[in-house]
């Protein structure tokens, strides 16, 4: 029996008056890759951003209905008792368009440690190296750690962002369409990387690319118009989907 890292229970969410998510329930398995697929506007990115409380940045009095339970602690991370900043210290995110800071590669990867108050230079250096190795970028940049991160190629920048998110040992890594802004070769590299990473960290990935989801993920959730239509092992979703809408989407009849 696989362990659960998180469990979503009846999560509903609305932007002001407009409902976006409708009573979603879904497990997130430990050290597995869970993919979320669906047509534009289905709410998959909104759901992803609930995990690290990004919505709290934009709305004063936010109201989440339902819960996301983080294991093994068993607490609901959407609760108003919990500080969103602490949630983000445990759950990391990589964004669709690579967004490294206009600082050096080293400073980028070390930033998560810096805001936590880690001061010991040798510790930071070893962490930065470890994360860049995990992101598959170490050999390319080890001689120019202090050069600007924005001078790297798109694919390399995205890997810096991945290393940056990994440096603080997150319990879940959220990936929001990480390759949609990249060229096919970089995309391939990053997909390999993601498959490697699941040994170390639980991954939830939103993707538009069905092949990517089929290839890389262990579990897949299909969403449509704010509802979770189907959730299952990826193999089963892509070969024998239970819902007609899932099948229509996968075979390209819409979306």
């Amino acid at each position, binding site marked *: 029996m696989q362990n659960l890292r998180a469990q979503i229970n009846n999560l509903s969410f609305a932007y002001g008056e407009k409902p976006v998510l409708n009573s979603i329930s879904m497990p997130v398995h430990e050290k597995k890759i869970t993919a979320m697929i669906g047509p534009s506007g289905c709410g998959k990115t909104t759901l992803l951003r609930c995990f*690290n409380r*990004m919505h709290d*940045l934009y709305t*004063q009095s936010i109201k989440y209905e339902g819960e996301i339970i983080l294991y093994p602690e068993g607490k609901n991370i959407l609760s108003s008792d919990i500080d969103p*900043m*602490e949630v*983000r*210290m445990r759950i*990391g*995110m990589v*964004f669709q*368009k690579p*967004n*490294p*800071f*206009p600082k050096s590669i080293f400073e980028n990867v070390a*930033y*998560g440690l*810096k*805001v*936590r108050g880690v001061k010991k230079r040798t510790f930071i250096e070893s962490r930065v190296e470890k994360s860049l190795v995990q992101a598959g970028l170490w050999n390319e940049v080890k001689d120019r750690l202090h050069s*600007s991160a*924005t*001078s790297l190629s798109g694919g390399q920048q995205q890997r810096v*962002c991945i290393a*940056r*998110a990994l440096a*603080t040992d997150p319990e879940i890594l959220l990936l929001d369409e990480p390759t949609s802004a990249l060229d096919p070769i970089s995309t391939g590299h990053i997909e390999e990387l993601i498959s490697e990473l699941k040994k170390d960290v639980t991954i939830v990935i939103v993707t538009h690319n069905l092949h990517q989801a089929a290839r890389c993920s262990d579990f897949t959730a299909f969403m449509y118009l704010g509802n979770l239509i189907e959730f299952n092992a990826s193999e089963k979703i892509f070969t024998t989907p239970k819902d007609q809408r899932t099948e229509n989407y996968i075979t390209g009849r819409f979306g």
Partner: protein
Amino acid sequence: MEVLLTAKQNQDSANKDLVTVDLVQLKKRQLMNQVFSVLGLLTLLFSILVLLALIWDLASTGAPRITKEFFMQFPSRIPGKAGILSAWVGSFCVMIVTALCAIPLGIGAGVYLEEYARKNWFTHLIELNIINLAGVPSIIFGLMSLGFFVQKLNFGQSLLTAGLTLGLMVLPIVIVTAREAIRSIPNSIREASFALGASRWQTIKHHVLPYSSGGILTGVIISLSRAIGETAPLITIGAVTFIAFLPTSPVSVVWPFINFQWLKDPFTVMPIQMFNWISKPESEFHVNAAATGIVLLGMTLLMNIVAIFIRYRFRAKMKW
């Protein structure tokens, strides 16, 4: 174009009148276009010509007067012996106080309005208020300072009052430029910072302020270049125009080594000195005024160039 139209004209005798009218209209329109183009160019040239005339007039009168002695002498009743020592030192000191007043308030307000403020009526009020302040004549700031700083708070007719007056006057400029610089930072950078567990203040300290510092610095220099040429508000608060001494030195060899007496001292600044000299009937003093004008103009120009340079360098460096 003419050949084509004529050919059509021959072809189309039924529409002959229509085409003839077209031709006349066309010529008229083309002429108007030419005339306007020339007019526009002349307007620009004329404006620049006036600027050059001003600079030439100042330089031809005042340039011979610009010597080292001119900078090192105090004003005097003898035009040939009068210098701007107290004036430029005064300007320098007042600029320091102006900067110390406008920079923290301006940057603080800019950061608050861009990073914290919600879209409610109070924020809207603050924004409207800043727009309004930017359009208030400078002399009114002088009047306010006279009533408030000089009389009510008893700061007197001092350097401190002068710096505060000008600092508040240029505050809207600093706020607007700070906001623009901060707004140019893409939101994805902020999101990346928050997603790594940074607090709002940490995001501002590590990202927002450093990345906007070039734009903010540009705004500060531009606002100081405006302040250095201001006369009216300082006359209003009572800057005396004949000052033949310097403010008390802030550093000394005896304890406590640093003092703030200079803030309370009376003072003068370069534009006031120039105003004083030009108000005198003797034309020799007008030469001094022209020389001061050159110095003022040169400083203002220099500051603007430095500001533009900083803005250019900074834009080149910041790649998102």
